[in-house]
């Protein structure tokens, strides 16, 4: 089982969700986040003083999926979220040790 974490531009959330559903991936967790990579922030003004805001609003999607679906998931996310500009975001993949369905204590791949 793999965990896919994708940090995205907030405006791309809907497109990525739809693309994942189309690829057959249904379970996901969405978080609101702030951050930046190499993308510079923006300047704001307050009573004549200029300051930089470098914690930019982002959206994070977390998926836990079967190993076989890895390429499909990544393809779906990249396809929907890519604009070619700095700030598009990142995808991280990691291994998951255990998955449990709380409702009935199902374990392993059937819990996904």
């Amino acid at each position, binding site marked *: 089982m793999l965990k896919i974490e994708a940090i995205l531009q907030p405006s791309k959330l809907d497109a990525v969700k739809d693309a994942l559903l189309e690829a057959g991936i249904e379970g996901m967790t969405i978080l609101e986040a702030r951050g930046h990579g190499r993308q510079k922030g923006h300047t*704001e*003004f*307050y*009573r*004549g*003083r200029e300051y930089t*805001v470098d914690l930019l609003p982002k959206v994070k999607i977390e998926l836990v999926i079967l190993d076989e679906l890895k390429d499909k998931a990544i393809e779906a996310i990249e396809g929907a979220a890519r604009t070619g500009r700095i700030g598009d975001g990142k995808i991280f993949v990691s291994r998951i040790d255990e998955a449990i369905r709380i409702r009935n204590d199902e374990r392993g791949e059937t819990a996904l």
Partner: protein
Amino acid sequence: MPSRAVRLPFLFTLLACPAIALAQTTAANPAPQGPVTQAQIAALQQAVQNAQSAGDNAWMLVSAALVLLMTGPGLALFYGGLVRKKNILGTMMQSFAMMGLVTVIWAVAGYSLAFGHGNAFIGGFEHLFLRGVGLTPNTDYAPTIPEQTYMVYQLMFAIITPALITGAFAERMKFSAMALFLSLWSLLVYCPMAHMVWGVGGLLNAAGGHIPSLDFAGGTVVHVTSGVSALVTCIYLGKRIGYPQTNMPPHSMVLSFIGACLLWVGWFGFNAGSALAASPLATSAFVNTHFAAASAAIGWTIFEWLHNGKPTALGAISGAVAGLVAITPASGFVQPFPALLIGLIAGFFCSFMVFKVKSLFRYDDSLDAFGVHGAGGTLGALLTGLFATRSINAIYGKDVATGAIDGHWGQVLNQLAGAAIAWSIAIVGTLVLLFVVDRVVGLRVSPENEAAGLDLSQHGEEGYDLNS
């Protein structure tokens, strides 16, 4: 063309009106048969007077409500939006506390000290506990409205003045210290200043004072005193932890925007109500107030657009407030186009004070109480001396010059004197009170409480609990 079914009845009603009117005269009110009696004349005169009083009292009660609206929620929102989220309730509570505390202080002694008979500097105790302040007019001040209307109208000014100071020490003063400090301030600084400018026998009273100064609605009494006190307080207290390196942007420009608009509308009560009657002078003040707010918003916006490259919402609303402050002393003395000019100058001057002078001297006047009220009030007082004209308000007499444009250049000097006195009393009074309150209660919150925020540390509350 309406249908025949409508036209005919309409025409009939139109033609019948004169007949009905005549019938009313002859049937209900028979024309006097003999000479009109003195009693009838006296009764008519009383009726006219009552009508005038009714109009004046209605306007004055509405004005009093408008001025209170300026404090709650106008100022509470304006200041509240400008502070960090963790301090929103603490900030609003400071304005609200004034609404409660100053009311009691005013009723017990404040009104008497400000408007009772005394000497050139302070009133007396004749109206302690509002003794003698009933529903008949006080001819010294407002001959057509009940004295209680006058008293409650003035009370709203007494409430907002200390509330303005809270902007300077935002985010770092203890609630207990603030309550004690500002309660004493309203007695020690506001009442004497109000007496000097507006009270019978006051030193600066335009009607018979030694140094007649023109302050229609409180440029010196309200804005200079509070603004200068604000400067003294923020220097005495010291900067917020992390200022100026840490960014401390407004947490909600939306709230500040709403507050500023409430201030603009409420200010019609503040200025036009200072005519103390529903009169043409009130109209003058109303128009001048609005014009100055508009032109000042434009002035500040232009300055900021050139200085920073973008016109901000904060700049626009701050500009409007600066214009309103500057026109306050002038509102019932100047023509509309000078009012426009006064606003424009205030927009540029106050933005300059906030953008340049504040960073030069590095004081943490958190919400620019001095930059807008202290500086704007002083500017407004001087410009009043320049533009006051007998064609709007012949306060010195029917053909006597009022301000410089009438030829009375000495008025500008009187304005300067009035402003200087306001500065002095504000500085001295505030320093004494800060010293005392600091010894008794301690002024500033601890660093841990400042970091946690006033809402939690002073009130045990959170302003926003959006997850609950």
